[in-house]
């Protein structure tokens, strides 16, 4: 199998019954696998709630490692909409040409950097750096701050390493507390300061609420962006013709971004807590149990996508849900899309080919399903155009 091939482990369960079941720390999860069911349930916030105990809608659950509510992600309408409209304009800044110019410089620099080297490990030496540097733009803080986050390594927010969870999470939480204090003393043009100066429903945001927004901003865009970038590099390594095509037909770039994001589905699923006895696919789901919305499975639903297991670079109709669906769709999607778009442009312009020297897959286990989501590490050589 090619390194850039990401098989669909959900096919059989999706077709035969539409759901899967898994245990997560004694709080079981029914995974919804079909695109229509996932969309409908994502839309139905009354029955499938986000505003549950903080950490419970995440799979694996983070109930034991945090109390801070992530905002607006762990809040339901109508309050959700009040928070969301406060932060939305900020997270749409990547549409601004000046922002894009800065992002372009960051990505150009890092591609130039790796073209100079013999070999590099993509996850830690390319994707992590790129993600961290780009995040300084999203927060609107000095570039140098990215050094701190790069030093944390790729795993600081991970929660499947349960012995270390709490410790790892507290590095981030303490850091955010500090940054909030600094912004109180010295308000600037950054996201912390914007939040400190804001009100929702006539009330100033509390430090705890600001922390909730910031944790989400850090955690939501970390391994997801790292996987999207790393996996795309593996794809171009094995499909140099696609790089040439993007160079010759820059107009398909937007479609290519959506297709890579559909295919790789950087976040496998997200949970909800059920607020009343209900059924999905004729399967009974009890009040106060959990479901998950499996974006990765939905994106390969053969009822919707032709050749779902192939990367069709210029796929025209592509109703994927890698950025989620409905009220809670990904706040960072605009930033993520810009990163991918500029990355594709830069690679097409500067890179002739990429050789994979060594790769170790990152396999997730969800009950009966084993899903490749990215790479633990992948060593490559970039060759200049």
């Amino acid at each position, binding site marked *: 199998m090619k390194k850039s091939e990401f098989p669909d482990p959900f096919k059989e369960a999706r077709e035969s019954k539409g759901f899967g079941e898994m245990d997560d720390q004694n709080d079981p999860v029914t995974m919804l696998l079909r695109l229509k069911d996932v969309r409908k349930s994502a*839309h139905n916030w009354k029955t499938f709630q986000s505003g549950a105990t903080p950490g419970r809608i995440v799979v694996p659950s983070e109930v034991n490692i945090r109390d801070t509510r992530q905002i607006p992600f762990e809040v339901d309408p109508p309050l959700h909409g009040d928070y969301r409209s406060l932060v939305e304009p900020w997270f749409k800044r990547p549409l601004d040409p000046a922002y894009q110019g800065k992002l372009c410089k960051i990505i150009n620099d890092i591609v130039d950097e790796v073209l100079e080297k013999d070999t590099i490990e993509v996850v830690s030496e390319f994707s992590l750096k790129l993600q961290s540097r780009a995040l300084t733009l999203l927060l609107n803080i000095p570039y140098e701050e990215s050094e701190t986050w790069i030093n944390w390594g790729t795993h600081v927010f991970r929660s499947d390493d349960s012995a270390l969870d709490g410790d790892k999470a507290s590095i981030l939480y303490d850091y955010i507390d500090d940054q909030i204090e600094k912004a109180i003393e010295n308000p600037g043009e950054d996201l912390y300061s914007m939040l400190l100066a804001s009100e929702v429903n006539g009330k100033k945001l509390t430090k705890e609420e600001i922390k909730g927004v910031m944790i989400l901003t850090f955690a939501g865009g970390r391994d997801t962006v790292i996987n999207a970038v790393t996996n795309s590099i593996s794809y171009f390594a094995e499909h140099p013709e696609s790089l040439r095509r993007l160079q010759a037909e820059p107009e398909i770039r*937007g479609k290519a971004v959506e297709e890579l994001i559909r295919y790789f589905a950087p976040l496998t699923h997200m949970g909800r807590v059920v607020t009343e006895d209900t059924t999905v696919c004729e399967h009974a789901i009890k009040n106060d149990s959990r479901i998950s919305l499996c974006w990765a499975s939905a994106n390969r639903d053969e009822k919707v996508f032709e050749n779902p297991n192939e990367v069709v670079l210029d796929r025209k109709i592509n109703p994927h849900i890698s950025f989620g669906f409905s009220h809670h769709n990904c706040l960072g999607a605009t930033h993520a899309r810009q990163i991918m778009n500029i990355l594709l442009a830069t690679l097409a312009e500067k890179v002739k080919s990429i050789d994979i020297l060594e790769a170790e897959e990152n396999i997730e286990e969800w009950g009966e399903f084993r899903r490749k989501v990215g790479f633990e590490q992948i060593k490559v050589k970039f060759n200049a155009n």
Partner: protein
Amino acid sequence: MAKITFITSENESITVESNSGSVMELAVQHNVKGIDGDCGGVCSCATCHVHVAPEHFEKVGEASEIEKDMLELDDNVSDYSRLCCQMEVSEALDGAVFHVAK
């Protein structure tokens, strides 16, 4: 050339002319408020939802099945809802009026 009018939810009316591309692209180029086109027109974001003025609906025709599935769950969907990234600009659309849903 097709003359196309967008009416935003704040009742601002914007009339533009074009002969190619999608209606979403046209709206984004002219900064029509409420049409974001986040996914670039691949039918995945529904940020290009419009209501076609009923008397012009014949010009644009029915949505495809995939588009209908997207619209079904969008807020304030109507019988005249379309995703404007799924409509190509052509002579046939001349005079059409689209009310921005958001």
